[in-house]
C-alpha cells in the first residue's frame, strides 16, 4: 500500500519568497479591474458594447505585458505548484529552526538569503548534528554514528599505503621530468585539467566500467568534484526557469547543484517500491506532459546510475528506452555514474556510453558525470569529470571550469596513482569485495530485525523499508522515527523525504563509513529503536 505525500506544509510555502511577477500581478489584477470597469463604462457610452469592452481589455493586456517584460529575469523558485514541486522542503512540524538567518540588516542578494538560511533538509541537518557530536570509538563512544554520508572508508588503507610508497615521485614531477621541481605544479595550468590526468582518468573509467567502453580524454572536462560538474552542465544545457526530469528518490544534493545558481527546476518522476524503485517510462512520459501543460520547458533528464539512494543499476533496456525518449522529445540526458565502480551484486553495471556505442543515436545529447569521491574514496581531493560528446558543451564547460579547477599537486598525485594499473586493479577488486561483505552482513542483520531493504547491486548504502515502524504512515511519522534514531540510538540515517521519495518510511543507511567489526554496534543501536517502536504500538 502506498500513500502519496501530503502537499507541502503551507507554513513552509509562505516562507519561500514569492516571485515578484506572480505576487504583483495578482495585486495588479484587482487594481486593474478597478480601472477597467469605469473605463468600460466610458468607452461603451461612445463606442458601443463591443469596442467598449475590447479597447480597455486590450490596453490592460498590453500594460501587463510591458510590466512583465521589465521585471528582471532572475526569479526566486517559482510559485509552489501542488505536490510536484520538489523545491520546497518537505518537512512539516520541524523543531524550531533559527529564523534569524532570514533577516539581514543590509541587503544581500535573494540567492544569498535563501542559501544562507539554516538547512531544513534532514539530509543536511543530520550531517550537522553528527559534526557537533561525532562518534569515536575511544574519544566519544556515545556520539552519533554517521550513516548518512556515502563515504567509503573500507579501502583507505590500500590507498594510504600506495601514497606513502610512491608520493615523492608523484607530487612534483611527471614521469618525464628528470628533476623534481615546483615548476610542474605551481604555475597556471589549463583550467579543465592536466592532459596527463585526463588520460589517466579515461583509462581508469574504462577499467571501472568493465573494459567494455573506451573514453576519449579530449571529451573530458575536469572539475573540483562531481558537484560543480553537475552545476556546470546545468548552466550549459538549460536556461533559468527550465527544468530537468529526475526519478525519485534522488540524491538530496541535486537540488543545490541544479537549482541554486543555474535556476533549473527538478521535476520528480516518482518510482515505486513495487518496481523496486526502477524507472518507469510511462511515469516519465506523464511527468513530461504535465510539465508541458504547465508551460515549463523540460531540457533534460538527470539520472544517477547506479542509483543513489536506492543502489539499483539501470538495465540496458531502460537505458535504451531513455535514449529513445530523449531523442523523441529532443532533450538531454545527464547520467551521474559516480558509483560505477562500487558494484557488488549480480547485476552488471553498463554505462550509458556503452549503449551509445552500440546504437545509432545522437551522442551529443548524452553527458556523463564521474568522480573519484566514491570509487576511489578520495572525496577530499575534489576530482570530478564531465564527459560529453557535444563539442559546444565541451567548449562552454571548458570555459566554466575556471571557477572549479582542481589543485595541481592533487592532479599530479592522482594521475600518478591511476597510472599504476596493477594497483588500481587490485584496489577495485578489493573494494568490491569489501563492500559486498559489509553490505551482505548488514542487510542480513537488518532483516533479522524485521527490516527489509530494496534490492541493490551497487553503492555504499542500503535503502531500508521502515514503513512498518512509523506511526502515522506519513511524512510526519517518518520524521519522528528519524528523530528517534538521532536522539535515542544516536545514528544519523537519511529519511526518504529528504530524497523526495513518494512513499513514507524508507531510509538510506550508508554502511561504508563503518568497519565490518562495527556492524554489531550499529545493529544494536538500530534494534533499540525498533524495539521501542514495537512496544509503543
Amino acid at each position, binding site marked *: 500500500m502506498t500513500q502519496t505525500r501530503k502537499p507541502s506544509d503551507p507554513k513552509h510555502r509562505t516562507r519561500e519568497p514569492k516571485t515578484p511577477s506572480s505576487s504583483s500581478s495578482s495585486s495588479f489584477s484587482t487594481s486593474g479591474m478597478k480601472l477597467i470597469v469605469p473605463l468600460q463604462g466610458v468607452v461603451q457610452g461612445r463606442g458601443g458594447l463591443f469596442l467598449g469592452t475590447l479597447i480597455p481589455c486590450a490596453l490592460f493586456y498590453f500594460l501587463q505585458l510591458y510590466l512583465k517584460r521589465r521585471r*528582471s*529575469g*532572475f526569479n526566486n523558485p517559482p510559485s509552489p505548484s501542488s505536490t510536484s514541486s520538489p523545491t520546497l522542503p518537505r518537512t512539516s512540524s520541524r523543531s524550531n529552526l533559527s529564523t534569524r*538567518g532570514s533577516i*539581514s*540588516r*543590509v541587503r*544581500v*542578494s535573494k*540567492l*544569498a*538569503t535563501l*542559501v*544562507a538560511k539554516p538547512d531544513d533538509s534532514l539530509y543536511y541537518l543530520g550531517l550537522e548534528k553528527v*559534526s557537533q557530536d561525532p562518534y569515536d570509538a575511544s574519544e566519544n563512544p556515545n556520539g552519533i554514528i554517521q550513516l548518512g554520508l556515502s563515504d567509503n*572508508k573500507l579501502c*583507505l588503507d590500500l590507498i*594510504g599505503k600506495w*601514497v*606513502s610508497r610512491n*608520493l*615523492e615521485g608523484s607530487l612534483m614531477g611527471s614521469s618525464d621530468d628528470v628533476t623534481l621541481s*615546483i*615548476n610542474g*605544479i*605551481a*604555475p*597556471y595550468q589549463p*583550467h579543465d585539467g592536466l592532459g596527463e590526468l585526463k588520460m589517466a582518468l579515461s583509462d581508469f573509467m574504462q577499467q571501472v566500467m568493465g573494459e567494455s567502453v573506451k573514453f576519449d580524454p579530449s571529451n573530458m572536462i575536469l572539475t*573540483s*568534484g562531481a558537484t*560543480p560538474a553537475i552545476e556546470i552542465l546545468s*548552466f*550549459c*544545457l538549460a*536556461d*533559468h526557469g527550465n527544468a530537468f526530469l529526475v526519478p525519485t528518490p534522488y540524491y538530496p544534493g541535486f537540488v543545490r547543484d541544479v537549482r541554486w*545558481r543555474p535556476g533549473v527546476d527538478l521535476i520528480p518522476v516518482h518510482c515505486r517500491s513495487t518496481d523496486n524503485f526502477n524507472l518507469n517510462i510511462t511515469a516519465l512520459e506523464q511527468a513530461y506532459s504535465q510539465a508541458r501543460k504547465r508551460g515549463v520547458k523540460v531540457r533534460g533528464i538527470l539520472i544517477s546510475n547506479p542509483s543513489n539512494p536506492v543502489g539499483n543499476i539501470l538495465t540496458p533496456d531502460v537505458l535504451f528506452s531513455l535514449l529513445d525518449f530523449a531523442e523523441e522529445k529532443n*532533450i538531454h540526458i545527464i547520467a551521474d555514474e559516480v558509483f560505477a565502480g562500487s558494484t557488488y551484486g549480480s547485476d552488471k553495471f553498463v554505462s550509458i556510453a556503452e549503449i551509445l556505442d552500440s546504437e545509432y543515436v545522437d551522442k551529443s545529447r548524452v553527458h556523463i558525470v564521474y568522480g573519484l*569521491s566514491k570509487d576511489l574514496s578520495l*572525496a*577530499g*581531493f*575534489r576530482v570530478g569529470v564531465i564527459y560529453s560528446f*557535444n563539442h*559546444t*558543451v565541451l567548449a*562552454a564547460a*571548458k*570555459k*566554466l571550469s*575556471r*571557477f*572549479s*579547477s*582542481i*589543485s*595541481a*599537486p592533487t592532479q599530479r*598525485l592522482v594521475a600518478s596513482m591511476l597510472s599504476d594499473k596493477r594497483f588500481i586493479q587490485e584496489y577495485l577488486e578489493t573494494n568490491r569485495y569489501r563492500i559486498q561483505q559489509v553490505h551482505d552482513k548488514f542487510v542480513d542483520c537488518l532483516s533479522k530485525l524485521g527490516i527489509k531493504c530494496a534490492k541493490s547491486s551497487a553503492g555504499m548504502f542500503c535503502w531500508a523499508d521502515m514503513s512498518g515502524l512509523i506511526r502515522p504512515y506519513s511524512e510526519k511519522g517518518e520524521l519522528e522515527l528519524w528523530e528517534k534514531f538521532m536522539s535515542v540510538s544516536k545514528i544519523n540515517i537519511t529519511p526518504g523525504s529528504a530524497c523526495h521519495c513518494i512513499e513514507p518510511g524508507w531510509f538510506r543507511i550508508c554502511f561504508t563509513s563503518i568497519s565490518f567489526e562495527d556492524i554489531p554496534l550499529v545493529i544494536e543501536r538500530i534494534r533499540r529503536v525498533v524495539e521501542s517502536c514495537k512496544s509503543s504500538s
Partner: protein
Amino acid sequence: MKLLSTKATCNSHGQDSSYFLGWEEYEKNPYDEVHNPKGIIQMGLAENQLCFDLLESWLEKNPDAAGFKRDGKSIFRELALFQDYHGMPAFKKAIVDFMAEIRGNKVTFDPNHIVLTAGSTSANETLMFCLAEQGDAFLLPTPYYPGFDRDLKWRTGVEIVPIQCNSSNNFQVTEAALQQAYEEAQKRNLKVKGVLVTNPSNPLGTTMSRGELNLLVDFIKEHGDMHLISDEIYSGTVFSSPGFVSVMEVLKERNELKVSSNEDDNNADRVWDRVHVVYSLSKDLGLPGFRVGAIYSENDDVVSAATKMSSFGLVSSQTQYLLSAMLGDKKFTKLYITENEKRLKRRQRMLVSGLQKAGIGCLESNAGLFCWVDMRHLLSSNTFEAEMDLWKKIVYQVGLNISPGSSCHCTEPGWFRVCFANMSEQTLNLAMKRLTAFVVECTGNGGSAKRNGGLKMKSLTKWVFRLSSRRDGREQEER
C-alpha cells in the same frame, strides 16, 4: 541538435577576440633560450616565478607536509575524506595570520569569517552571486583586469559600469569619476550594488591611497545598500613606498570595524558588514596552480551563503594541509615576504630601466607583477585602432606578448601592461633589447612612427585576418 542554454552559446563572457591572437601566437612560437631563441616572449601573464627556490627548499625540509603526515604519523585517512565546506581550521588560521602579516599586523582577521574557494576567480564570482541580482551593476575603476568581464558577469548576469580614470592624476579614483559612473548606471536603469576595486591595482601596479579608500568608504556609506569589494590578491607584492593600505585598515582608523557580535554595541551607521576582501595565494605565493582563494567578510549572511556555495569550488584537502603547514611556519613566511619584496623590486627596476633606454616611460609603480607602460608616443594616431596596430607589431615583429590597454578598458589609447615576474633575468634583458631595437627602427627610420604605420599595417592586417579565421577559440589565462 538539442538546444543548449543561452549562456553556453552566447559570447557575453567578455572574450575580446583580437586579444587572444597574442596568446595564440605565443603558444605557436614560444620563446625558449635554447630551442627557440627567436620565439615570442610571454609578458602578458602575471605569474610570480621569482621565489620558487624558497618554496622548493621548504618542501624539501618538510616532507611530512607533502607526505600527508603530522608529527611523523600518517593522517591520510583524515585528509582523503575531508570535504567540509567550512574548510580546514588549521589552514584558515594560517591564511588569516599570513594576511595579517602582509598588512604589518595592523589589522587582524577572524578565521571564522573566511571562506575558501578554488582561486580568487571563484571568490569574485561567488561574491557577485551573494551580493547582486541578475541585471544589477557593480562600479569598477578602469583600467581593470580583463578577466572581470567574465568572472563577474557571465553566470551571474551582473553588469560592470566603469569608473573612468585617466593619466592626468595617475589613474586614481576621483569623486567626480565615481559620481559620473553612478549616474551612468542610473541612466542605463541599472541598480548599483557596489564598487569593486583591485588594490594593489591590476594592471596599474600601484597601491590605492588612503584618500581613495576613504572616498570609497564614504561613497558606500552615502548609499546605504551598497557594498565595497576590495580584491587584495596582490597585497603581498608591494615592494616600495608608499606601503600597502588595506581597506580594513581604513575602517579601523575610522573606527568603523565590527566591535562585537552584540548587535547593540555596533555602530548604528554601520559599514563593516558591507566591506569584503578577496584574497588568493596565486600572486603573493606564486602558486596559481594550487587554486587557493578566499573571501573575507564580517557579514554573517555573506559568509554563510558563500561557504555553502564554495561546494562548487572546494580546495583539495591535500593542498589545504600542505599550505597550512607552510604558512604556519612563521619563520618561513617572514623570510618569504621579505625576499619576495626584494626580488620584485629588483625585477621591476630592471624592466623600468630597460624601458627607459628604449625611450619608453611607465606609470610609477610600487606593487604587482607588471608595469603600466606608456607607449602613446609610438602610436600612429591617438586611437585604439593605432593601439591595436602597435600591439600586433610588438607581438609579431618584436616577439613580445604584452597586454593592450583597450583589453583592460583603459580610456586612453597607448598604454600596455608588461609583466616582469614570470621569466628569467636573461629573458627580460633580451626582451628589452628587442624593444629598444624596435623603437629605434620605429622612430629612426624616416622620422615619426606615424609615417611608418601605413605600408606595414596593410600587409600585417591581411596576415592577421588570415590567422583569425583559423582560430579555434582556445581559452587562455590572462592574469
